[in-house]
Structure formats: C-alpha cells, structure tokens
C-alpha cells in the first residue's frame, strides 16, 4: 500500500510536471502571438496617427521663379515680380477655399536677363529639390536651360518665351503664351492693313528677334509685301549708331515703315534716338510685344514720337476676358500702373503649376507634367483658355493691337484693336 501510494505521488508529481511543461509551452506560444498582435496593432495605430497628422498638416511646396529683375528686361521684370506675388497669394487662397491643406511658396531668383544666370538658377532650384519652375522670360534663356530640365525632369512654364524654334513636342518646357509664328501673322496683317507695302524689320540679333523676323518676312510676303531684315547687336547699352544706320538704310531702300522687334530697354533706347531723326519720324512705325510695358515709352518725348509716327504694335492678349479686367484692376490698385505685357500669362503659369502639383499627388516632374496637360485642358484663366498644343505652347492665343495714348492727362498703354481669324479690327 505504501508503495502504491508512493507511485501515485510520484505519478502525480511527474504528471503535474508534464502538464505544467505542456501548458506553459502552449501558453507561451499564445502569449507570443498575443504580443505580436498587440505590436501590429500598435504599429497600425501609429501609422494611422501619422496619416491623421499628415492630413491635419499643411503640405508646403516650393516653386522656383526665375525673373529678369536686372539686365535688359529689368523694367518689366520688376513689375512681373508683383504679378508673381499676386498669383501665389491667390493660389494659396484657392487652396484654402477648397479646404486643401497645401501651401505654395515662391522661391524668386534674379536671372539678370542672361542665359548663364538662368541656367545657374535652374540648377540651384534642382539642388533644392524643386520640380516646377516659372520662367525664364526670354527665348534665349529657355533655350539655354532646355537640355538640363529635360534631363532632370523639371517642369518649366515660361510665360513670355515666344520663339517658334522652341516649339518642340514631348519636352519639359511649357509656354503659357502662343509662339511668334502666330504673332508674326498678326503683325504682318496689321502692317498691311495700314496700307504699308515695304518695311525694314529692325530686330534683335538673338533667338527671339531672328525667328520673329523670319516668320514676319514669310507672312508679309504672303500678303504681297516686302520685308527687309536688319539686325542689331543686343550686347550694347546704346544704339545711337545702329539707329543712324537704320536711317541711312530706310532712305536707301525707300521703305514706308519700320517694324521693331525689341525688348524693353533696347527698344526705348532705339526710339529715344529715332525721335531726333526727322526722316525716321516721317515713317510709320510698328512693333511686336517686346517693348510693351516699358515705362520709357510713357515719357513725353517718346510718347510724342509714338503719336507722330502712329506706332501700333501687337501683343498676345485676350481682351474680352472679364477675368483679365478684374486682374488688371487688382494690379492697378497695388501698383498704380497697368499690368505690363505677359502679366496674364505669368499669372496663369503660377496657377497651372500649383494645380498640376495638387493633381499629380506626388512632387515628381513626370507626374506633374502629365497632370499639367490635364489641368490646362480644363482651366480658364486670366489669359483665357490655357490648353496646350502638342509642343506645350498655348493653343488658343488671341492678339490685341496696342499703342500709347494720352488718357486723362497722362500717357498710357492702350489696346486699340484686335486680331482674329486673319483680320485686324481697329477701334475708331
């Protein structure tokens, strides 16, 4: 009996030990599983928390802006800076209005109206991780940055580069303005409509001037006119000698009018010398958009010359757009002057860039480029319908006819007509 009891006790002890060992192994597996589950839940909670935080946070995107604040385009460049500030302010207000927690910040750099500085700015933006850039202004600058932005997939929206030679499909360059192929047609029609059959085109010796002159000559010849090109070196500060040669050439060729393809500072300088030449003052003068907005044209001496020679110019603008009038009035309130040329295109470039980033969802060049095409198709801005053509240039571009006139005792830029469907319509 005692032996049986002893066996029973030993059996119980062994059984309890085995049972404990078994139970503890089962329990530890269960405990480990529970721990894993708790950890997983914790990590999911923290992910959700991150997402909630992110949704509550405002995402900040920087957009690079390269403007000609100094150099040949300084006069309008400084005015464009105000347009950029207005556009970013309005873009951020729109984001708030639609409850989007996104904020855009402009990083404005001066490109000195040079190609080298424009490229340096773009490289700086790239190093800072910026994928969308507004500007540069001039075609020769856009040409200089083209391969760099294409290689690095940076979306560029130039509001004022118009050279037809830069109308290239499938690149990263977009232009919120029509190419000069269209404006050359409008200007040729304007000159012809004034009964002028033979002109000298006095133009910049750069990407913009040479291409414009080439297209103008084609269009003007097609209308039965004769156009003679005369280029000038753009690196000079003063063009007195070139104007003297222009005077000699106009007499020699017996032309009836002069077409100038200039930027603002060179254009003002040319007119300031031309006004002293009685023969040049006896001819009709025409201009592209390049000089529009230059304050020098509103001074008494040059404005008088403009009136005497009945200078008319073309510029890309959809005049009948009510949004444009509201924008112009807002700009006037801020600065006391009318918005210069390409202001509408610049304003829309900022808007399109912002909405393309939002639509893309990721801050990557390729995605933004795809989104930009889509956004532009559905966006109606200060410059009208913003849709791009296959080259990334504004598809629907209207042109207005401008001059300088005395309005309420002061000289101002005034739009006096428009170009549509090959026909120039001038107001009385």
């Amino acid at each position, binding site marked *: 009996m005692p032996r049986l009891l002893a066996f029973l006790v030993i059996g119980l002890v062994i059984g309890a030990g085995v049972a404990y060992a078994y139970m503890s192994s089962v329990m530890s597996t269960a405990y480990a599983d529970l721990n894993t589950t708790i950890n997983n839940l914790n990590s999911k909670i923290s992910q959700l928390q991150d997402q909630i935080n992110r949704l509550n946070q405002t995402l900040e995107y920087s957009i690079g802006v390269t403007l000609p604040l100094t150099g040949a385009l300084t*006069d309008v460049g400084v005015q464009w800076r105000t347009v950029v500030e207005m556009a970013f302010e309005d873009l951020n207000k729109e984001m708030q209005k639609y409850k989007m927690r996104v904020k855009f910040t402009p990083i404005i750099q001066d490109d000195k109206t040079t190609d080298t500085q424009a490229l340096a700015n773009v490289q700086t933006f790239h190093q800072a991780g910026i994928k969308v850039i507004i500007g540069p202004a001039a075609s020769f600058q856009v040409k200089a940055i083209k391969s760099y932005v294409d290689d690095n997939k940076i979306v560029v929206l130039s509001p004022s580069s118009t050279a037809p030679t830069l109308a290239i499909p499938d690149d990263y360059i977009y232009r919120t303005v029509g190419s000069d192929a269209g404006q050359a047609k409008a200007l040729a029609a304007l000159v012809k409509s004034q009964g002028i059959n033979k002109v000298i085109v006095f133009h910049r010796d750069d990407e913009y001037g040479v291409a414009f002159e080439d297209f103008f000559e084609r269009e003007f010849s097609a209308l039965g006119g004769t156009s003679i090109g005369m280029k000038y*070196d753009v690196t*000079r*500060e*003063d063009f*007195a*000698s070139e104007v*003297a040669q222009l005077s000699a050439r106009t007499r020699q060729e017996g032309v009836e009018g002069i077409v100038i393809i200039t930027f603002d500072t060179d254009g003002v*300088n040319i007119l300031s010398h031309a006004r002293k030449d009685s023969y040049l003052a006896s001819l009709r003068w025409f201009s592209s958009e390049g000089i529009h907005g230059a304050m*020098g044209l509103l001074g008494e001496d040059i404005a008088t010359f403009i009136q005497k020679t009945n200078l008319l110019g073309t510029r890309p603008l959809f005049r009948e757009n009510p949004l444009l009038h509201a924008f112009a009035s807002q700009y006037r309130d801020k600065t006391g002057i009318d918005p210069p040329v390409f202001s509408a295109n610049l304003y829309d470039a900022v808007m399109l860039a912002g909405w393309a980033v939002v639509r893309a969802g990721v801050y990557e060049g390729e995605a933004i480029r795809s989104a930009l095409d889509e956004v532009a198709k559905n966006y109606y801005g200060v410059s009208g319908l913003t849709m791009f053509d296959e080259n990334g240039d504004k598809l629907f571009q209207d042109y207005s006819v401008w001059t300088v006139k005395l309005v309420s005792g002061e000289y101002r830029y005034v739009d006096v007509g428009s170009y549509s469907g090959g026909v120039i319509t001038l107001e009385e």
Partner: protein
Amino acid sequence: MTTELINTVWYACIYGLMAVPLTLSYRTSRVLNFAHGVYVTIGAYIPVLIAKGFGIKVSPILAVSASFMTGAIIAMASHAFVFSPLIKKKSTPVTLMIASMGLWIFIKYAFYAVLGTLQKAWMTPIFYTSPNLEIPILISFMGMDIDAKLLLIISLTSATFSLLAFFLTKTKVGMAIRAIADNPELAQITGISRDKTLLVTWAISGGVAAIGGFAWSLFAYVSPETGDNVILQVFACSVIGGLISLPITFVGSVIISSTENLLIVFLHRYLGVELSFRPFLSFFVLLLTILIRPPAGAGGGLPYRYRLRSIFRVFQREVKKNV
C-alpha cells in the same frame, strides 16, 4: 554722316568724362578700380532721383553738383573703408583689384535694392528712365537750331577738364596728387600725407566719373547697368592713355568713340561688315595699344612725359656728341 559725327562727339565727351578720372585714380593710388562703373551709374541716377523724389525739373547746375558730390562721397568711402585699410596692410595690387571687384558687386546690388524700395514707395518706374531736366530741346544760334544737350555736354566736358587741369597744375593739393602719382616715397619724405592726398584724389575721381554718368543721362536712358555696360570701353580709353596720362586718355576716348561710330559705319557701308562687329573693333584697338605700346603705369614703368623727356635727353646727348 552728320549723325555719326554728332554721335562721335557725344561718345568722346562721355568716355572722356568717365575714363580720365579712372586714369587719375589709378596713377595716384595704383588701384585698378572695377567699382568705377558704379560711380558712373550713381552719378547718372542722382538727377533722376531728385526729379522723381521732389517732382521737379532739375536744373543742369544742380544735377552736375549733386552728381559730383554723391560720386565723390561714395569714392571717398570706398577709399576709407576698403582701399586704405588694405594699402596699410601692404596688400598687393592684385588684392586691391579683387577688393574693388567685391566693392563693385556690393554697391551695385545695394543700389538695386535702394531703387527697388524707392520704386515701390514712390509708385513710379525708375529702373530704366531719364532725368526730367530744365533744358530746352533746341537753341537758336546765328539762325541755326542747335541741340541744347549737345551744346551742354561739350561745355560740361570743356569746363570739367579745364578745372581739373587748373586744380592739378596750379593748386598745392593738385601738385601733391601729381607728386604722389610720380613718386610716392619721395613725396612722403617731403611731408605730403599720402592718405589725405589719396582721399582727395578718390573724391575727384568719383565726382568726375559721376559727372560722366550725368552726361550719359543727357544722351540716353539710364539703368542700374549703365556704368557696367560702358566700363570696358572706359578701360580701353584709359589703357590707351597708358593708365597714366590724362590728356592721352582723352585722346583714347576720341579714338574709341571714332572707332565705334565712324570706322564701323565706314566698314559697314563700303565693305558690308556687320554693325555687331563694333565691340570687336574697339577691343582690337585696345589690344593693338597693349601690344605696341603697353601701358606704362600697368607695367610699372614711367609716365609718358618722363619717357618723352628721356628720349629728348638722348637726342640732346647725340646732338652734343656730333657737335
């Protein structure tokens, strides 16, 4: 050809007013001053700022005086705060030249900032403009209508150079400046304070360069880049003057001006050379000058007048020998 001749006169006067003070400052201080262009720009802008700021038409006398004073003050400050400390530390000419480049960029962008602020405050464009001056367009003289600004620039150039010649040759300070320029060590032994003399030289150089800027504003529009855009031509004129001789620097201005306005037109009309070759011609003249007759000052040699004297002495010796 009349227009080209008139342009030549304009440019000769403008380049002369800008280049002669550059030569004066170099030959006295041995600083090849790249900030010279900003004195020109500021001088060009002073009448613009007076006219826009006060809403008045500025008389030419006020414009010239204000431009001179401002240019002189900025040049004196350049000397006092930058060049003088470096000269005292016995810095090399290369260091001084690099310092002048830094000064040039600093003043230029500070000036841009000032103009930007003023444009915003006054709500009036000032980045590419011209001064509102009290000058008639034409003046009738013996039945002929003459451009009043052309007459003014000729008078201004003649008056400035006559006063400068009088100051340098007839006054004590002027003679001290020439003494320092010719032999600084000897001049200092005779009791001339080099630092004070240099300060006066900088004042005159900056002031006259600023008058050059005002002269430019009579001819064409001014921008914050005005001085920079003409500085290479101005250096060319000074190099022709050997960076030493003031009269030959003015001759250099006439040469560069004629090259840019007459020679290029001649080549354009008769040989079909493009007008854009104009800078090429100016700098071809500059290169020729450097190769044929290197600037005495830059090469560390003697001023032209000493060269001529030594040639004259050799000639006298030869004559004596033969006699």
